[in-house]
């Protein structure tokens, strides 16, 4: 009878809707697992949200722009409201972008939000990726999500490139020309790919329409799929957290999705959107009206790509002009090598998690983040990579640096050429030393307490600084990190007396392991015995 009385009770409307949906979608089961899902609080965990939200903003504003943009290279003579372009021959794509900027109310704002959001999206992904890198958050079980994120970054670069090329202005057209030149440099297939991509000779009349479908459909479609996969995996793996009291590899400590994160993450979307709108109100981006329509025989100095392509541009600019002519064929190394380097440098980043896990041989799950100092070799390698990236960014803008810092263009090119080789090595060595220094300081702090700044005079006249012992929470936090032992190749003779020859790969692995975790490459963390010995004795230093 009790069931009968229960069904008689009329459920509130919201519940009835939920019941309806549950009967078809099983939403109660989903909500049970996720509604009170815990997210740890740390500002660096919100970098990914910046990317997600700017991606959504880009899609929203992009849809609006498609309502007015004409992806056509038909030539028209401009008679719109922008005076300095009156009567100029231009493509419809360029003319419609002028219309969006000068004749559609709010069109300029949406264009600027779209473009600023793209610049910030890429910058956000870069910083997010390095947050993940330096804290070791890519380790098992998150390697696949690292690859998803990496692919999003690379696809984001190309989506951005195809997007800023669409207005068919003089600056972006110069970038497309560069792309065509780079394609031509590919051995055997270069000329064919160029002809097929452009529908004939450069620039032809097809490229804008083709870039358009790539920019608004193909690439964002793939990216949307990857974003969804990325988020599902974040939910499925649960978020990582920094070491601290109460935080273990088996739990996640933070606030529940409902209500705190719903409000914080939802609110953050509005904060990001609002902030980018303000930027679009006060700062111009890509003023195509000042650049002029594309013509293959016109150019402006200071021709640069958007920042995320700048590092590729740097490789291309500082490369010596090597060209090999043999048997009636030309190998354009001056363009080909930068293209290959561009791929290799990016691939190194994508593959790093797998290389590291091979070196450590660690197949366990990791949910506690490393502090960068506690992984000195990884941190050093990461900083070396970032150094290459930024050195090449400087190379990509060498003409702007030259005029604004009153230096010679040629001198900057030479600086970049040398820094490409010296910079990362220097960065690696310095970073690792700094990390080891910080590890030593942590050890000191654990064993001797924090320097209080208070000087005390002992009865016999000696001055000492009072060290305050750390709280149990701090002691735990500072000693919670993992330390690997270097892998030994092991005995070369097995228990049966049969000689075993280690393979070259095994030797390489042992050597790498030593350089990661060898004696001088990490500071052994204090043991409980050390701590007890010091605190039980004269623990005042």
């Amino acid at each position, binding site marked *: 009878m009790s069931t009968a009385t229960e069904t008689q009770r009329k459920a509130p409307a919201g519940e009835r809707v939920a019941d309806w949906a549950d009967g078809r979608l099983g939403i109660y089961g989903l909500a049970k697992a996720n509604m009170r899902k815990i997210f740890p609080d740390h500002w660096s965990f919100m970098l990914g949200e910046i990317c997600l939200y700017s991606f959504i903003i880009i899609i929203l504003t992009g849809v609006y722009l498609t309502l007015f943009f004409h992806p056509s290279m038909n*030539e028209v003579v401009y008679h719109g409201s922008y005076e300095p372009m009156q009567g100029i*021959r231009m493509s419809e794509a360029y003319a419609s972008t002028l219309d969006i900027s000068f004749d559609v109310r709010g069109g300029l704002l949406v264009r600027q939000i779209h473009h600023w959001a793209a610049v910030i999206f890429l910058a956000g992904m870069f910083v997010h990726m390095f947050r993940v890198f330096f804290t070791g958050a890519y380790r098992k079980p998150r390697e696949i999500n690292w690859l998803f994120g990496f692919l999003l970054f690379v696809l984001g670069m190309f989506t951005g490139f195809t997007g800023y090329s669409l207005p068919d202005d003089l600056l972006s057209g110069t970038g497309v020309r*560069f792309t065509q030149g780079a394609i031509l440099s590919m051995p055997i297939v270069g000329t064919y790919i160029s002809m097929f991509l452009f529908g004939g000779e450069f620039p032809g009349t097809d490229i804008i329409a083709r870039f358009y479908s790539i920019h608004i459909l193909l690439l964002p479609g793939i990216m949307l799929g990857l974003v969804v996969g990325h988020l599902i995996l974040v939910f499925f793996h649960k978020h990582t957290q920094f070491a601290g009291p109460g935080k273990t590899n088996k739990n996640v400590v933070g606030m529940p999705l409902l209500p705190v994160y719903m409000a914080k993450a939802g*609110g953050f979307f509005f904060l990001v959107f609002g902030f980018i709108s303000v930027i679009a109100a006060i*700062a111009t981006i890509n003023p195509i009206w000042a650049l002029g329509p594309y*013509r293959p*025989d016109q*150019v402006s100095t200071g021709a640069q790509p958007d920042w995320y392509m700048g590092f590729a541009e740097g490789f291309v600019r500082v490369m010596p002009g090597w060209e090999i002519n043999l048997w009636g064929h030309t190998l354009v190394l001056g363009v080909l090598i930068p293209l290959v380097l561009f791929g290799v440098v990016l691939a190194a980043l994508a593959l790093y998690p797998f290389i590291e896990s091979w070196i450590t041989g660690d197949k366990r799950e990791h949910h506690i983040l490393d502090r960068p100092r506690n992984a000195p070799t990884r941190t050093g390698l990461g900083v070396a990579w970032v150094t290459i990236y930024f050195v090449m960014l400087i190379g990509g803008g060498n003409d702007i640096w030259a005029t604004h810092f009153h230096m010679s263009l040629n001198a900057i090119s030479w600086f970049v050429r040398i820094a490409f080789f010296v910079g990362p090595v220097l960065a690696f060595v310095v970073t690792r030393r700094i990390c080891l220094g910080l590890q030593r300081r942590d050890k000191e702090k654990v064993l001797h307490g924090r320097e209080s700044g208070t000087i005390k005079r002992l009865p016999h006249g000696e001055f000492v600084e009072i060290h305050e012992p750390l709280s149990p929470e701090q*002691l735990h936090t500072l000693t919670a990190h993992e*330390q690997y032992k270097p892998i030994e190749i092991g005995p070369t003779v097995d228990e049966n007396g049969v000689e075993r020859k280690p393979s070259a790969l095994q030797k390489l692995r042992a050597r790498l392991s030593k350089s990661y975790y060898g004696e001088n490459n990490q500071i052994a963390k204090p043991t409980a015995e050390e701590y007890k010995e010091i605190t039980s004795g004269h623990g005042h230093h």
Partner: protein
Amino acid sequence: MSSQQIPEENLPVEQGTAHGAVEGAGDPFADPGLPAHKPRIQDIDERAANRSERAVALMFTLSMLATVGFIASYVIFPVDQIVYIWPFGHVSALNFSLGLTLGLALFLIGAGAVHWARTLMSDVEVADDRHAIEATPEVKAKVLADFADGARESALGRRKLIRNTMFGALALVPLSGVVLLRDLGPLPEKKLRKTLWAKGKQLVNMNTMEPLRPEDVVVGSLTFAMPEGLEEDAHDFQSQIAKAALMIIRIEPDNIKDKREREWAHEGIVAFSKICTHVGCPISLYEQQTHHVLCPCHQSTFDLSDGARVIFGPAGHALPQLRIGVNSEGNLEALGDFEEPVGPAFWERG
């Protein structure tokens, strides 16, 4: 290289579980557990909580006003009105007001929500257990058994003829898609080797659209030319000018170091391709004192007094020179097409 080769003891003790040899109560570094929750002012002082509520409500209200302001700006400001606003300059009144009001409306919703979450929602930290991602051995065994059953029932392993022909069919069918791409563009053939220039074509000044005469071109000047008969409204103008654009300068014949360059010039007037041999930018940063020309895209530098050879940067070969002379009307004319392909190098260039 599987994990079996790594002895277990080489791996560190798992983070956040135990610390070295000393276990349990004697461990000074043991995890003291989640710290006790400390209340915020809003948790213990109702007046403070009410203040927070009012602040959140104020932000939401201001957001509404900002949206009204957005609509008002849209209606009030003409699309072409320019106003001076320090320090932004002479900006569009519409863009500025729309952006600021929209930004404020959105930002205040976000700020309100976050302030609400930070001050009024519970800030007690909760620990949630993680569960192993890997399946239990029982589950794994069940899945493997199911798979084996399915594979056996399909007889894919036994009936090799089916398997092989199916793989063959699946491998071939994408070819249709590849074939369909063929008409994306024509084959390269010799297109990259030819330009519009031909014997007898006059050099047309791109500023005046008049044929150039030798006396027009003085030492130290820079002029751009295109072949006569190429019209700006021609359907293939862009593709043709992308190869045919010329840069005309005049150098005292005695100062031309390259013998061929001097022969191909007309009284010191030389015509070089304007298209960079690196990746095809229109190169034309001509320094008249040194006769160096710099590419604005990747800084390849060419010496126009020495056969336009590369003296700096990533370009791999010299700019092609067009052989010119003077026709019976006294105008400059080409004495043929370029002898080598203009623009970026490619595999078949040779």
